[in-house]
């Protein structure tokens, strides 16, 4: 690795119906491609999690959204690890047979992939996941018993010496809903995504260790019209394997007083790639105040219309991820992307 590793942050916000990445880990090909042209890729579970499917990349940093916001704000750094011991929290609301499916998925990750897991903890009350679709079109959610979740995590950290936390919460089965039908057809907004995000955000905020979430759901009836973008979530009984793989090598969070060689901080980020209509998150607002090149992708449409231009954020807008990859290659090489176009404006005198 060179002295100044080229570092890219890739964000596809969850729960806003992103055309690429709004479904079952379907921005993973984008992440794989960026990881080929960057030395380091920082991205979040919504991009990398494909239920039974995953692609482990040695130069990818799996950083949950709350941690990513803290990193972008300069509050936390990222420390690479060789392996995390992952603690598993199971919602008491999960039925016995479904619980056993998840335990077998975790055992499979230990036996087949060699991952390190602690013993598991069942929450002392059902978490009570509630889903909400906001007027903006984004999905959000809450849990009724956050204290129960935090007590379970505390036990895993203190007794089990867990270094990262996988949470499996029982989500409402809503087989007949229009939202679910649209999601399975690769349209609309993931109805579960917003609630999933707040579960992991709560754990990361409280314990400052990596966390990701997998929903527990009953298997759906076979659908011959299933979209390829949603298909990864219908291959098995759990969404857990990708979460365990991601957490097994997720970087630990560090604060300034304890920083050491090899830690990654926001001033080392070269570029951010994000959908053009989803520019209202904390990470992009923070990075807009740094020298990071912000590349917005028009083709990845979302339910929102929060553009960088309207918020006063300077970006380089491209049509597609294919074009974004070209910009990253040029930027990394120190070549102005404008020089690769047929027409180049002449220089003008700077007036103030």
């Amino acid at each position, binding site marked *: 690795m060179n002295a100044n590793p080229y570092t890219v942050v890739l964000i596809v916000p969850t729960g806003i119906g992103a055309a690429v990445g709004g479904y079952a880990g379907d921005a993973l090909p984008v992440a794989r491609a960026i990881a080929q042209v960057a030395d380091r890729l920082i991205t979040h579970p919504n991009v990398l999690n494909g239920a039974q499917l995953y692609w482990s990349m040695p130069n990818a940093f799996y950083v949950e959204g709350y941690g990513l916001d803290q990193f972008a704000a300069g509050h936390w750094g990222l420390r690479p690890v060789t392996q995390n011991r992952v603690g598993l929290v199971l919602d008491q609301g999960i039925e016995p047979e479904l619980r056993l499916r998840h335990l077998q998925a975790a055992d499979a990750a230990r036996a087949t992939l060699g991952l390190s897991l602690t013993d598991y903890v069942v929450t002392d009350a059902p978490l009570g996941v509630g889903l909400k679709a906001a007027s*903006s079109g*984004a999905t959000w959610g*809450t849990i009724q018993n956050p*204290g129960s979740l935090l*007590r379970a995590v*505390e036990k895993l950290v203190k007794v089990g010496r867990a270094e990262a936390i996988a949470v499996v919460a029982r989500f409402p089965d809503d087989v007949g809903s229009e939202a679910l039908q649209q999601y399975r057809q690769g349209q609309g907004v993931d109805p579960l995504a917003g609630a999933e995000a707040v579960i992991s955000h709560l754990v990361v905020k409280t314990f400052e260790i990596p966390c990701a979430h997998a929903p527990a759901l009953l298997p759906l009836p076979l659908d011959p019209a299933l979209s390829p973008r949603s298909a990864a979530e219908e291959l098995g009984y759990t969404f857990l394997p990708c979460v365990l793989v991601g957490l097994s090598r997720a970087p630990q969070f560090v604060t300034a007083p304890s920083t050491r060689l090899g830690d990654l901080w926001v001033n080392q980020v070269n570029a951010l790639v994000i959908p053009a209509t989803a520019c209202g998150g*904390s990470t992009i*607002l923070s990075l807009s105040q740094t020298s990071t090149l912000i590349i917005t992708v028009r083709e990845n449409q979302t339910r929102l219309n929060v*553009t960088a231009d309207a918020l006063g954020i300077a970006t380089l807008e491209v049509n597609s991820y294919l074009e974004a990859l070209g910009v990253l290659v040029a930027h990394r090489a120190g070549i102005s992307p404008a020089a690769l176009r047929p027409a180049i404006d002449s220089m003008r005198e700077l007036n103030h």
Partner: protein
Amino acid sequence: MTVTQLVMQFVSFEVELQSTPGELQQLILAQLQAQGQPLRWAITAIAPDQSRVTVEAVVMT
């Protein structure tokens, strides 16, 4: 750990658009802190005249 009283809730509000993204972020964080501990938030809409933005969030109280 005494966490039994924690409540997680969804909130939505509007703030005036600021002249820089940094000022806007600080204003939103201040508004969020007044309502609880923010877990997750985003600007989800911009008024047609670009005078105000809508923020949606989940906070702990």
